[in-house]
């Protein structure tokens, strides 16, 4: 187990390094000269030279990378070109609503996916199976931004049950916060449930064919215990991994859902930053987003190792 976790941590560090190189390279490929942009109208040759060397942009690429990674690790992501706020503050503030949305969607997704996946597997090729798998493909194929608009149109505009948009932190005003979270969570959550339901169904079907389930049935173990104890304990292990891996897709989906529901999260921040060419903010948002994906993947790997005795008891 320890060996597995250590090797995973080693791998994660390697991935983080690759990610940082990719982002650093992306930033270098931006057209135009960042120093010019920063000076803007009070440009003088002397100021240009001085700022350039201060930022170390005259040094070799490797040294620049080291400079850059040094600043990033110390939390200094530079300032927003627009409102001169510290990027790290902007990005962290925006990360919270996105996280709340993603977690709410995870919960909604799992609540829908687990029962529908199990029923589909238990009554294979029955109406239940076609129904839940049909629903899964339906919500999985529906682009989240369009689904959001339709939900707003029906439930907010037409029925008036929910506010059309906006975000309130659930811890500051629980009722209002939750109220505004329902539609976005359903939008993103159903997309996620479509993915997970299919995987639960195929994983469960595969486990039910295993010899140890047949052997347990031959020992007189009842059907319920067969499914919910013997099969489920094995079927859920790969599902945990998949849910973890889908965290990245969820983050991507959040970008669109936030735009539809005007939630001040990472998505809106990065889209606005791109349209305004505010590259420091774009870099900060992407850095935090991707790093969180990598960290979640690591946590999922460790959870997998813990759940699977073949690795836990090496």
């Amino acid at each position, binding site marked *: 187990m320890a060996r597995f976790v250590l090797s995973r941590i080693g*791998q994660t560090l*390697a*991935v983080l*390094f*690759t*990610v940082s*190189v*990719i*982002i650093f390279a*992306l930033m270098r*490929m*931006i*057209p135009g000269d960042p120093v010019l942009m920063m000076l803007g109208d009070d440009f003088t040759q002397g100021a240009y030279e001085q700022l350039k060397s201060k930022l170390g942009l005259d040094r070799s690429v490797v040294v620049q990378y080291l400079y850059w990674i040094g600043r990033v690790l110390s939390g200094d992501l530079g300032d927003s070109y627009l409102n001169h706020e510290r990027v790290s503050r902007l990005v962290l503030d925006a990360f919270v609503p996105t996280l709340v949305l993603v977690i709410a969607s995870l919960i909604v997704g799992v609540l829908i996916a687990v029962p529908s996946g199990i029923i589909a597997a238990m009554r294979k090729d029955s109406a239940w199976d076609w129904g839940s798998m049909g629903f899964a*493909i*339906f919500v*999985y*194929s*529906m*682009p*989240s*931004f*369009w689904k959001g*608009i*339709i939900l*707003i*149109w029906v439930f907010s*505009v037409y029925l008036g049950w929910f506010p059309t948009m906006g975000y309130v932190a659930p811890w500051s005003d629980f009722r209002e916060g939750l109220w505004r979270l329902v539609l976005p969570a359903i939008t993103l959550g159903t997309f996620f449930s479509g993915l997970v339901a299919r*995987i639960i169904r*195929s994983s469960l079907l*595969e486990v039910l064919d295993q010899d140890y389930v047949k052997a347990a049935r031959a020992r007189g173990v009842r059907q319920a215990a067969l499914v919910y104890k013997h099969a489920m304990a094995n079927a859920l292990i790969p599902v945990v991994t998949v849910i973890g891996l889908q965290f*990245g*897709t*969820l*983050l*991507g*989906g959040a*970008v*669109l859902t936030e*735009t*539809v529901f005007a939630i001040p999260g990472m998505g809106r921040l*990065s*889209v606005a*930053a*791109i*349209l305004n*060419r505010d*590259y420091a903010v*774009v870099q900060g948002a*992407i850095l935090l*987003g*991707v790093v969180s*994906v*990598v960290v979640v*993947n690591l946590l999922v790997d460790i959870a997998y190792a813990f759940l699977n005795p073949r690795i836990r008891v090496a």
Partner: protein
Amino acid sequence: MARPLGADGRPFDPDGLTLPAAAPEPAALGSRAALHRWWRRFARNRGAVFGLAVFLTMVAMAIFAPLISPYDPLAQGVGIPMASPSTAHWAGTDSFGRDILSRIIFGSRVALIVGIASVLLAMVVGVTLGLVSGYYGGLVDVVIMRIMDGLFAFPIIILAIAMMAVMGFGVRNVIIAVAVGFIAPFARVTRGDVLAVKEEPYIEAARLAGVSSLAIIFRHVLPNVLAPIIVQGALRVSGAIITESGLSFLGLGPPPPTPAWGRMIAEGQTFIVMAPHIATIPGIALMIAIVALNLLGDGLRDTLDPRMRR
């Protein structure tokens, strides 16, 4: 270690009566008879046939767009702005008075072009990387795979946004951005399949017979890895289209006035109260396309390569 393996890879099962529901044998892509046999199996999956039908209509729609669309998609004021669906304008008109049905028909071009081009580009790059790192292994494998892990950590929308920020907008950049997002999955799947095939005895037999590495890759490894690659490609096209429409929705897609479903929906959002059809109808077209492509992908996966049940 148990005794030698039985006929189907499981420990020797003398009563190896594989039940008729067992996986069909891998479709030998070469011979015509196998293709016919594959089609009979594929046609049994109604969903997949529906998917194929919708996909083909979409392609036809995209090619013959000018012939079949009732109005010029760019012409403004063709009808009263924001008119709801009527006999004159089956899908109604948008805020500029443009005919929505024509724009949907032309919009299928952007969707298909981006969807297929980005997947093909990603396939070429990803599969090559997967083949190399899978077959040769060692340091090459570790380096390529760590880069792929890095790329994989970028949710595809976020990666696309970053690429657009750097390269600017336009259909060409959308294709490249989406393609870069799909290189990692193709590389990983291909590498996994190459590793699986590489362990098969018929590869070792070829090696021990003196066949060169290149000949082994192209005559033995590639044909057996082709099926999962095609399936992976089909499964990815819908993802590419969703990503393209997402980017257009965010305003990062092809510049106006080119008709793109994503942006049509975005424009429709502001008039959702007065003219809900502006956002709804393009969304329905988009969804039908994606559901169809997903069903088509599933159908291909279940018939082409039984191993790909995940």
